[in-house]
């Protein structure tokens, strides 16, 4: 243990105790369950694991459904996130603060409540029910409903990443681009996007993890018809209800594996983000260097 951090606040034995406590907390609450998923999933053997995933048509469908719903929801939220962040970070207008507070709503609303609201609009007895029946469009109990519900719960993730970054960088580069003759799209692709790419990636990674793992809102909206409207998390629950624990664990392990990939990606991206934030600080403060010698390569 380094001495600097323990000279004034805590003694060595207490520090050791605290570290042990922290490790125990994280270990018991987080690590043990994580390890248990993989252990239980592979306990019957890899062959059985593969069997549960690839040879069960309903499970296969669930995997496919998750892979088609989540990316669409993420794509919608990426477009929304970029647009909303640009609007809020670069312009001032009446109602701006109210709009920003709306972005946070999906975070605090229970997913079940969100799903219910969607059902109230698109369900058979809902607001648009008769219209949809007349048009023979299915929203709830169907793919569009799943996308809607997933989009709702992941809405804040991209925009909340982008707003601080856009505000920190400031509009000067974009103003410079405009003064040099760039059109809106030219400015956006050549100047804005390169500056926000890591924050954007971070938001997309988080949104994707959330979208693939969403349960409550999708549960309400899907009608959880096996083989048709069950996403992977719903499939986990269905198998659990059917007392098919090993199969349930197998699907869960895929989701857990995805979560680990997400965390690794997140870690790498955050590293880049921190480096860029440091560069921003350095650029702000180092304007007055006299020497013309180059600094280390970025």
């Amino acid at each position, binding site marked *: 243990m380094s001495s600097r951090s323990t000279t004034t606040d805590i003694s060595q034995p207490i520090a050791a105790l605290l570290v042990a406590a922290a490790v125990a907390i994280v270990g018991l609450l987080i690590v043990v369950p994580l390890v248990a998923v993989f252990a239980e999933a592979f306990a019957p053997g890899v062959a059985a694991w593969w069997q549960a995933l690839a040879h069960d048509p309903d499970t296969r469908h669930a995997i496919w459904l998750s892979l088609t719903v989540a990316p669409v929801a993420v794509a919608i939220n990426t477009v929304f996130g970029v647009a909303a962040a640009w609007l809020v970070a670069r312009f001032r207008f009446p109602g701006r603060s109210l709009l920003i507070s709306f972005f946070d709503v999906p975070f605090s609303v229970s997913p079940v409540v969100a799903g219910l609201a969607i059902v109230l609009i698109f369900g058979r007895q809902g607001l648009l029910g008769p219209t949809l029946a007349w048009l023979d469009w299915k929203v709830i109990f169907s793919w569009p409903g799943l996308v809607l519900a997933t989009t709702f719960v992941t809405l804040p993730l991209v925009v909340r990443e982008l707003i601080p970054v856009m505000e920190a960088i400031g509009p000067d580069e974009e103003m410079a681009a405009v003064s*040099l003759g*760039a059109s809106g799209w030219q400015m956006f692709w050549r100047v804005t996007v390169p500056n926000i790419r890591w924050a954007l990636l971070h938001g997309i990674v988080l949104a994707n993890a959330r979208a693939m793992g969403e349960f409550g809102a999708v549960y309400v909206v899907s009608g959880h018809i096996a083989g048709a409207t069950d996403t992977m998390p719903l499939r986990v629950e269905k198998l659990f209800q059917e007392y098919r624990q090993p199969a349930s664990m197998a699907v869960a392990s895929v989701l857990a594996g995805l979560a680990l990939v997400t965390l690794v990606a997140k870690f790498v991206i955050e590293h880049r983000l921190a480096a860029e934030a440091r560069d921003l600080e*350095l650029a702000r403060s180092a*304007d007055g260097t006299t020497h013309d010698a180059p600094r280390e390569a*970025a």
Partner: protein
Amino acid sequence: MSIHIRHVTKTFGSFTALDDVSLDVADGALLALLGPSGSGKTTLLRIIAGLEHADSGSIEENGADITDLHARSREVGFVFQHYALFRHMSVFENVAFGLRVRKTPDAQVRSRVEELLRLVRLEGLGGRKPSQLSGGQRQRVALARALAIRPKILLLDEPFGALDAKVRVELRQWLRRLHDEIGMTSVFVTHDQEEAFELADRVVVMNQGRIEQEGSPDEVFDQPATPFVMDFLGNVNVYHGRVENGRAFWHGIPIDYPDYPHAQAREARVYLRPHELELTPAADGRQRPGTSLSARVVRVTRSGAVTRVACRPHGSDAELHVDVPTDTARALTLEPGSNVAITPRRARVFLPAPEYVI
């Protein structure tokens, strides 16, 4: 390319940045907008560039009304205070940006960028990123980038404000030489009087959204039109005296002021620059009585070739600052406590708004 600004007003919420400002910029001039923060100089510059829009008034360029023209179509070269270089592009791509968005062919882009990098003495550094450059180098990239599109007018927002003193001096001289070679109409914003005087053909002194005075550096310094200009440019001693019968009275000493021939005495503020006062030892009998002020030296500060002597006139609490060439100061052996006589050589008198004289 001449610019005519007519009656421009700009407010931000309840703050008036520009209040009915009119200005003419002659073709080929190098003009400085000089003033303290909040004077509106940066706002005016940005309005010329199209980066802000005036609430009212108009801007003309060579006779064409460009008030509503968007910034990207104005063909101005703007150099931002903190350079605003595109951080993820190389120096080359930064300079090439204006050309690329106009879809200029590659070969042309390359030759123009290289020409500009040579001009700003950064040849060979095209591959670097802005984060790898010093402040002075970034400044030059920003300049090259602005010049790449052959703008009709060059606008610089506090171009040297963020740099070390030595780099600042070098770049100032370099910019002046550049302007002399190219002859492009240029306007720059600064709060540094020295910078404005060294670089500009004409100086526009601004304060609180208005133009206080416009003229050559000499005109503005020697014939300040308002107390603000006098005070802002260089140091000044202020005395609250009076005018009467064609004379202004400074510490009781009369100075000719034919602009006020009336017998009715009026309050006036008398401004003297430190170098407009002459200092002689008190014992020197050459002074005519009634033309000089006796004082005691409080402090002597040497600043290079000029020595600033702070004196307190006898019978007064005020402190007068007199600038004396260092050689003269040495010859006079001035010390705190010595008695001296101060003679005014030139003064500027400002009368506050008249009250009713019945």
